[in-house]
């Protein structure tokens, strides 16, 4: 029971169009899980199936160990990509209504709303209509409505679109706080860099298929290819020095700035041979940078897709 959600061979098609084919995923409890992939890959369909907005054609979904049922709805909070609020309804009324639809009593909902409104510093909006608020303001309210019923599983579809950087940061902090309190969180996005830093686990979805999933750090380890960025401060002639290095190592690129006496290069090393080059370099120059390049989720995605295409 370490997984909040398990999907087994879930498939879904709309007519001839395959939206999901045989997706299997395990989403651990109390972590942030990134569901990554380009637009139209099938992420939203998968999320809608979790929210029981549509149903899979085949396969099974377990929530907290038992098959997904209508009563699980109140344990899930969902911020859809296509989101909005009733324009002519007052903020407070609207939030109360949506909270009650999630199963909260009116009094509970009121209490919690007051807490959240104070927390996000929007207490005086209660009697305003949505059409009087800016888009970013409305997004804050939407966030509150999503988390108000303290769901076990929170699903955010493109959470940061529509937020300005300041508010995006506020929301990001709130999400991390919720995770600290034990909530499991799914992030779905096509802008992989935006959530990469938050996610412990990711799944890559491409053209309705899962092409990769697992712990992000493990994936990165598996996908790194021993390429290092090196920076040297040296009195030597950089270009001549590079020549000598190129004979011994697989240099990918280099740049010498004579004025600053700074030599930068990227090198691919056979595994576990960093000590050799470090020893050699430190004898002749002052090393001010030596780091392994970690592939981004985006790089990994592109590489995996390419590998897949090549396999065929």
């Amino acid at each position, binding site marked *: 029971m370490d997984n909040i959600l398990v999907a087994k061979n879930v498939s879904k098609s709309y*007519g001839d169009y395959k939206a999901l084919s045989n997706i299997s995923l395990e989403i651990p409890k109390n972590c942030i899980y990134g569901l990554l992939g380009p637009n139209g890959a099938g992420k939203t369909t998968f999320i809608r199936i979790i929210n029981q907005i549509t149903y899979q054609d085949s396969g099974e979904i377990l929530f907290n160990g038992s098959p997904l049922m209508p009563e699980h709805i109140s344990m899930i909070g*969902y911020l*859809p990509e296509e989101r*909005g609020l009733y324009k002519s309804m007052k903020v407070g009324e609207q939030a109360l209504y949506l909270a*009650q*639809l999630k199963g909260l009593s009116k009094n509970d909902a009121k209490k919690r709303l007051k807490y959240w409104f104070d927390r996000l510093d929007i207490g005086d909006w209660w009697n305003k209509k949505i059409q009087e608020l800016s888009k970013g303001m409305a997004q804050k309210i939407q966030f509150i409505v999503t988390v108000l019923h303290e769901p076990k599983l929170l699903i955010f579809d493109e959470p940061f679109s529509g937020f300005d950087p300041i508010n995006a940061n506020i929301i990001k902090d709130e999400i991390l706080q919720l995770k600290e309190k034990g909530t499991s969180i799914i992030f779905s996005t096509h802008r992989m860099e935006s959530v990469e830093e938050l996610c412990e686990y990711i799944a890559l979805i491409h053209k309705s298929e899962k092409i990769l999933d697992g712990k992000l750090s493990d994936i990165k380890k598996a996908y790194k290819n021993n390429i290092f960025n090196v920076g040297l401060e040296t009195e030597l002639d950089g270009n001549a020095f590079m020549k000598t290095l190129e004979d011994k190592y697989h240099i990918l690129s280099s740049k010498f700035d004579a004025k600053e006496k700074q030599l930068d290069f990227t090198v691919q090393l056979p595994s576990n041979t960093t000590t050799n080059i470090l020893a050699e370099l430190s004898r002749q120059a002052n090393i001010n940078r030596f780091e392994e390049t970690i592939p981004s989720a985006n790089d990994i995605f592109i590489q995996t897709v390419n590998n897949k295409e090549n396999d065929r």
Partner: protein
Amino acid sequence: MIGKLGLIIKREYLAKVRNKSFIIMTILSPLLIVGMIVLIAYLIRINDSEKRVISVLNESEFFDHQFKTSQSMSFVRFQNLSLQEAKDSTSSLGYYGLLYIPKGTNLEQVSKSAFLYTKDNPNTNVTQRLESVFQTQLRQKKLSKLGVSSTQFQDIEEPFEINLATFEGEKSVKGINEIKAFIGGGFGYAIMMFIIIYGGFVMRSVIEEKTSRIIEVIISSVKPFQLMLGKIIGTSLAGITQFTIWIISASLLLFLVMLFLDIDLSAIAAETSITPQTMGGMEQFPVSSNSEMMLYAKEILNIPWILLISSFLIYFILGYLIYSSIYAAIGAAVDNETDTQQFIFPIILPLMLAIYVGFFSVFSNPHGPIAVGFSLFPLTSPIVMLMRLPGGIGEGGVPLWQLILSIVLLIGTFLGIVWLAAKIYRVGILMYGKRPTYRELFRWLKY
């Protein structure tokens, strides 16, 4: 589950009732309706008070007292004037026309050479009235030649109306079929108006949820079908509220207006009457005797009101649910209101057909094949069956099997249509971008 449905109904109801244009319509409509009635009454009064004056230059020895002043016409006698002088003074006095009857001793001769001079082409009512005076005189003359006395002549002229009775021997009165169909038609018309107004509300409310993008937030908490049902019920409750306010305030207003302005409603009723005894020339309405009035009252009381009202409720609820779920499905299928036209027309069509075909066929024969067919066909039956029902069920009225079959068909259609509409709704609310074709809608049913 019920709790959530209640929440949705409450929200939809309040959203509708608090809407500014809804409030304005609720207040304004009775004023408009009563205003219209007052205006019509006023116009009729003006129309009535316009009396036509005809000057008569009678040089013959006939027609001494035959031209009698009536409500809409009066006669002025000219004497010792030449025809030209009479014409001139008629036009300078602003009279409507001059009737010239030349000298003569032969009635036929005189009548043939009589002339009506007017400024423009004369009104048909005027000519008919004058012609009938001549006709009566001529007929009386010819009959007296045959030895019929003038009192006998009066006897002959007595108007005649046939006595009517049903096979059961109950006395019936003229036009009662029309009155009954009219009452039933009133109910049917109310259903149609309700469907068109509040079905449109349901549709717009669905479109609003789509365009404001709140829909996915909501259906992650409740089932789309619950939302659709709650929306339809909430909107119709708002509609019933509005209708009730309209009826109460309009009748109150009308009562007050009548009290203060002393407007005779029966005059309007007579003017706009649909009874077949429309004015024939100068003939007065056949003055309904007291006993005849009693018969009408009895017939109207005889209308099976309980049956009629309970069937009204059944047909109203089922018919409204069928149509409003179609409206909801249309709202879900499109992104904005301008795209709805192509879908709305096909559903307005059966309603219009029901009203017009219903009125024509049920008026002429409540149990003819067209009337029966339309009162069985589920999309028109709520309106047409209600037009037929005031005649009662069983003998002389709607056969019981027709009523039952009609309701069974309606319930079957209701289940089928709501099921289909819910499917289209469920898929449509999450589709953005382009206007779907009928073929795509059909494909959605399989998702």
